[in-house]
């Protein structure tokens, strides 16, 4: 357990916070690249997912994509793409986006699909156009599952970026790779703690957001998101979001 003390001392050692690529620099680099990848993935997957959820078309393809993506080893995908395109940030971003699309797609279409058909019919009967139904009914009601997809996506990207350090990328994984290469277990553990902390903080922030975005009318009906076990509809797609991490 003393190794943990040493690792925390290493993290907070001023020498690792000043000059050159320091701890804060690597944290920011990790967050920045992750953020860009998540944004690109959201921009691609969100409209497609909403369209699939709204029309019910292409559902089979979406399920197939998320199944295959779950089976693909991130390490292998990184290795192959970097060998094909060369070392750099771009291939890493491409791999991360490829891996980030399926969970976001799953969250988006599962969220829209989970909206009660009667609610949508009611909106249509009130005279709402299809766009209004999507924007004012389906998306607000889908937000908890949508953000669930975003959480899975962000975790996937942060974790995979940690692995990307093995392929000549900086980020927080660099401490793990350097620590392993030099048998410096304190640095190794410090890297592991930093990546874990980053993942937990990002996930925590998104989890809080997920609680706040539940529309009030829905929140009145079910107060607890992890709710009592008699809800079957909205919970079903969770199976999709689990098990998708590198």
């Amino acid at each position, binding site marked *: 357990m003393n*190794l*943990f003390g040493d690792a925390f001392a290493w993290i907070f050692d001023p020498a690792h916070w000043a000059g050159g690529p320091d701890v804060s620099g690597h944290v920011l680099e990790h967050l920045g690249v992750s953020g860009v990848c998540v944004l690109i993935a959201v921009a691609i997957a969100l409209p497609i997912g909403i369209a699939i959820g709204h029309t019910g078309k292409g559902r089979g393809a979406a*399920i197939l994509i*998320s*199944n295959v993506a*779950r*089976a*693909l*080893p*991130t*390490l*292998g*995908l*990184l*290795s*192959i793409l*970097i*060998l*094909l395109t060369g070392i750099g940030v771009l291939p890493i971003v491409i791999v991360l986006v490829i891996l980030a699309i399926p969970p976001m797609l799953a969250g988006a279409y599962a969220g829209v699909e989970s909206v009660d058909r009667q609610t949508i019919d009611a909106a249509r009967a009130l005279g709402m156009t299809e766009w209004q139904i999507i924007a004012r009914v389906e998306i607000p009601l889908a937000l908890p599952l949508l953000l669930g997809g975003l959480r899975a996506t962000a*975790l996937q990207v*942060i*974790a995979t970026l*940690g*692995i990307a350090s*093995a*392929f000549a990328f900086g980020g927080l*994984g660099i401490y*793990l*790779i350097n620590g*392993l290469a030099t048998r410096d*277990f304190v640095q*190794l*553990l410090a*890297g*592991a*703690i930093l*990546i*874990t902390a980053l*993942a*937990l903080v990002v*996930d925590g922030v998104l989890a809080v957001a997920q609680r706040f975005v539940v529309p009030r009318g829905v929140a009145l009906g079910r107060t607890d998101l*992890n709710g*009592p*076990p*008699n809800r*079957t509809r909205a*919970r*079903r*797609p*969770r*199976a*999709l979001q*689990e*098990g*998708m*991490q*590198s």
Partner: protein
Amino acid sequence: MNWVWIGSNLGLIGGRILEHLALTAPPIVIGLVLSIPLGYAASRSKVARSILLSVGGILYTIPSIALLVLVPVVLGLAILDPLNLVFALTIYAVAIMVRSAADAFASVPKDVLASATAIGFSRRQRFFVVELPLAVPLLLAGIRVVSVSTVSIASVGALIGIEQLGTFFVDAFQRSFPTEAIVGMVCVLAVAAIYDIILSRTGRALTPWSRKQAVASPRMYTADKVAAL
């Protein structure tokens, strides 16, 4: 693709497939076995459910490469011990499976339980004869997700020097030899497919009623859909 390399390294490829199977089978089995009592507890008590699912969620959030380093420090194992990988994968497996198992037991209709009690089943009998068999479809759906992600995550172990199929990815990068990485990728997908076939066959053998009533019973239909996801 360098077919000559593949031809002359079939032994190595086969060996790493076996290592991959040996490293991933225990986490999948242990994950299933541990998740049954934990999931059952979570389906019986709200407090247990929220504690177990929160802990599972937090453990699952830990990135794999970090968990692979944290496990040996906490357990006091050598950093290159293959057991680290087995422990780390087991942690992920249980973290995912607890939720599936809790949902599986919660999916057993309350009136079925009441009927079982009414005709004189003890709690033990009721669990083994009624609840566990009825939970099989959702348990199976969960363990299929677990097996696929376990096979995929295991390859990360190559970064801390644990030899299995993932080692092909690291070697391929270091030698600039894409063939090796593609071989590794194909083998990982094949291993995942082998597990999936074994599990779905086993599941079908364990639930003979679901084949006859797949269309008639909406619950079984849902379970199959989840399995398809």
